[in-house]
């Protein structure tokens, strides 16, 4: 049995007494009016929200919830896009001693019903009409649900049900309560304990029903602290929050790390504009699923092919230099002076601008996780000078447990465990973890808890091994690993990931199947790893238009088969 243990490193003192809301209270007091806590792109501007605004909003929402009858330990659910209001609601819940439950924005109605019912949710924060409609339609089946709070007034003018209340009205209630009891908020914030449940996180169940993981304040905070001790961030940094809050990775960045460090969290205008908005901000820290990085590389490749000759030559040369230097670094070999100069040249002529286009020009650490990523994509970003790292984690450890270290990146591994985390591989090859961030258990599901938590070790249900350098290699979900006739384990996904960058496949994780007709189609057959944010895409065949004339050139040589940006502009006569 291999065994790695990293001692916890000191830093921000996180005691068992500290809760997220206490930290929030202190940070908001510390930064006050002078610093921007978050920005939302709204009305064409990056509207700044200072820590003071953040604090006030949370305070009134929180008091409003109390006024509506929230008791410590009650569950409050949130559903909606990434907006400051979502984070406020979550924080308000915690401040009032409640437990926050996040739902995916595109949850199907049955799933919403199951989660709201199972978690005994008392209040639901829905963003707008769509969420309110969903909630209203299941109101009768979730007896615990008392109030639905909405925020976006679009289309809400004809809703007059008693169970509905707007965000603003809720805050007004809060203000009234503050008038009556000015000290209540501070008292509320200071009463919790670090081991109290903060979040109830539902992990996906493609086959079974979702399980609700209970995460304590301490889980979250230690998680953030340990990650930051590996890759420090600063309170002047920018971060863009656009992945669903119902995904633990986003919670980790926005709450665990964001709150501790106090960096600015930026929210895109619309989900569709996220990519563009990221470019505008140019974040210092980034966390995205491999899909997004893969999309970036693909779009770069396509654009490169469509560029003019001179531009192509520059790009080719620069990427050759970049790849060479990156390979030297991967191999931990010294970079000769001449290559350093060339690298500089490549940076000035191409990479600087290219990073700017991708919104990566300020990025210090870029993480990818949730699914495996093809090594070629990995190399691509390093060749560009982007410090991309693989991470491994799951909801049950409140985020991540393993990450690459600077200058020690092997792209088929996920790196070393973060401080405070122990990783072991069982005899069966299963990865197990022990750390202060390991969750408390599954809500109302002792059997599952028993299976997952044994002696403080979390059984991940993932197969993997540690390589000669102590790097963790994740193979696949246990159920997806087949055994070949000679007894060797075989993972289709593992293979597929390594094929991803092959030029013959058009879409990520896709395989080309020839249908009976002449038209080959690409259909995605991958199932995203369970913790991935995009799980909802699973299995649905995605039809991409790869039509072509069967008699023309082989399609991989046919330029038109390449995905290309379709310009929406159309000159009209």
């Amino acid at each position, binding site marked *: 049995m291999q065994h790695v243990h990293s001692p916890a490193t000191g830093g921000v003192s996180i005691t068992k007494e500290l809760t997220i809301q206490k930290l929030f209270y202190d940070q908001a007091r510390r930064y006050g009016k002078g610093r921007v806590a978050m920005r939302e792109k709204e*009305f*064409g*501007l990056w509207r700044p929200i200072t820590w003071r605004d953040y604090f006030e909003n949370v305070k009134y929402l929180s008091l409003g919830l109390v006024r509506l009858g929230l008791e410590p330990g009650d569950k409050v659910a949130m559903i909606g896009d990434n907006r400051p209001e979502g984070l406020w609601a979550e924080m308000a819940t915690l401040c009032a001693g409640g437990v926050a439950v996040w739902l995916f924005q595109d949850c199907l109605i049955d799933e919403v019903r199951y989660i709201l019912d199972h978690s005994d949710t008392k209040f639901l924060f829905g963003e707008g009409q769509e969420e309110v409609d969903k909630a209203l339609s299941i109101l009768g089946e979730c007896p615990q649900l008392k109030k639905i709070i909405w925020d976006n007034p*679009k*289309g809400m*003018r*004809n809703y007059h049900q008693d169970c509905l209340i707007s965000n603003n009205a809720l805050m007004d209630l809060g203000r009234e309560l503050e008038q009556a009891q000015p000290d209540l908020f501070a008292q509320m914030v200071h009463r919790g304990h670090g081991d109290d449940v903060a979040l109830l996180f539902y992990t996906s169940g493609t086959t079974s029903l979702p399980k609700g993981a209970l995460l304590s304040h301490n889980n979250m905070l230690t998680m953030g602290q340990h990650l930051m001790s590996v890759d420090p961030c600063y309170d002047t940094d920018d971060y863009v929050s656009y992945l669903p809050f119902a995904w633990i990775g986003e919670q980790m960045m926005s709450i665990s790390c964001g709150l501790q460090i106090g960096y600015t969290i930026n929210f895109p*205008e*619309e989900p*569709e*504009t996220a990519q*563009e908005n990221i470019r505008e901000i140019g974040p210092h820290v980034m966390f995205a699923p491999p899909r997004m990085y893969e999309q970036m590389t693909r779009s770069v490749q396509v654009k490169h092919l469509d560029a003019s000759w001179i531009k192509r030559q520059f790009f080719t040369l620069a990427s050759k230099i970049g790849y060479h230097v990156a390979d030297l670094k991967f191999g931990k070999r010294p970079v000769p002076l001449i290559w350093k100069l060339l690298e500089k040249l490549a940076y000035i002529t191409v990479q600087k601008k290219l990073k700017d286009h991708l919104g990566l020009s300020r990025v210090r650490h870029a993480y990818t996780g949730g699914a495996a990523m093809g090594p070629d994509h990995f190399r691509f970003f390093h060749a560009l000078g982007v410090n991309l790292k693989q991470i491994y984690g799951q909801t049950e450890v409140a985020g991540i447990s393993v990450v690459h270290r600077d200058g020690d990146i092997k792209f088929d591994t996920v790196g070393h465990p973060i401080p405070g985390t122990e990783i072991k591989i069982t005899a069966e090859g299963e990865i197990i973890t022990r750390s202060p961030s390991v969750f408390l258990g599954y809500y109302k599901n002792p059997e599952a808890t028993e299976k997952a938590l044994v002696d403080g070790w979390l059984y991940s249900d993932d197969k993997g091994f540690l390589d000669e350098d102590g790097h963790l290699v994740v193979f696949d979900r246990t159920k997806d690993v087949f055994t070949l006739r000679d007894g060797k384990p075989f993972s289709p996904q593992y293979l597929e990931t390594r094929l991803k960058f092959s030029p013959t496949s058009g879409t990520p994780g896709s395989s080309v199947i020839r249908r009976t007709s002449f038209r080959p189609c690409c259909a995605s057959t991958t199932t995203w790893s369970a913790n991935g944010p995009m799980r909802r895409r699973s299995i649905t065949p995605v039809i991409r238009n790869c039509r072509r004339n069967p008699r023309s050139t082989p399609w991989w040589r046919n330029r038109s088969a390449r995905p290309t940006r379709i310009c*929406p*502009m*159309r*000159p*009209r006569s």
Partner: protein
Amino acid sequence: MGTAAGMKQGDELLALSDVHMHFGKVAALSGINLTIRKGEIHSVIGPNGAGKTVMMNIINGLYRPQKGTIRFKGKRINTLKPHARAKLGIARTFQKVEVFGGMTVLDNIRLGRHVHYRSGILSGAVYLGRAKKEEIEHRAFIEEEIIDLLEIEQIRHKPVGMLPYGLQKRVELGRALALEPELLILDEPLAGLNLEEVEDMARFILDINEEKRWRVTCLLVEHDMGVVMDLSNRVFVLNFGNMIMDGTPEAVQNHPEVIKAYLGEEDLYATRA
């Protein structure tokens, strides 16, 4: 904003009485009476060439009727030029989009606010103080009230001429709204749109009619019967310069003459939905 004091829901906002209009010998309108009440969506339907557009042009002043009076908020406006009527609070969109193709979406909408700008040419020339402040105020209004309502965030800086037709229509609506009109004339806002865009447009029309912020009275000319019947409070049927009837959507749908002249027996083609 431009609301006349004392106007309540249901008061007469615009009235055409006995309006005659002819071009040469061709009579386009012969004695039209129409009353639009505040807060209503009043639709005008009729075959092509029935004079609907002429009627719209008369209301906003592009044509002057030979006979009859037009009253807006109780005031006779026959002699006012279109831009003066715009100032009174009549805005419109056109059948074929008439946007300013070379300008960006934002500038198009800014232009709709023209009558609300106060700065003169001199302060514009130095662009300090008033002009600058005003630009910022109006920008905030446009972003908060119009771009947000019409969901055109992604295209605000694009030149309108480059946009697809459906979005151009939306921009045109935004431009008309920026005027903060009391009466909004929508001349075939749905023509050439696909169902998705029609749904959006219907939603916007309802929003601006019902939202407390707007409460704009709409005069809707449209061939899409599904939308007309669903949205309108009243429907006015015009046939070659004459009114067939003016009544509720249900009454219009069952009126034999309307069916004969306009709707046709089969509903098959009447609406896209």
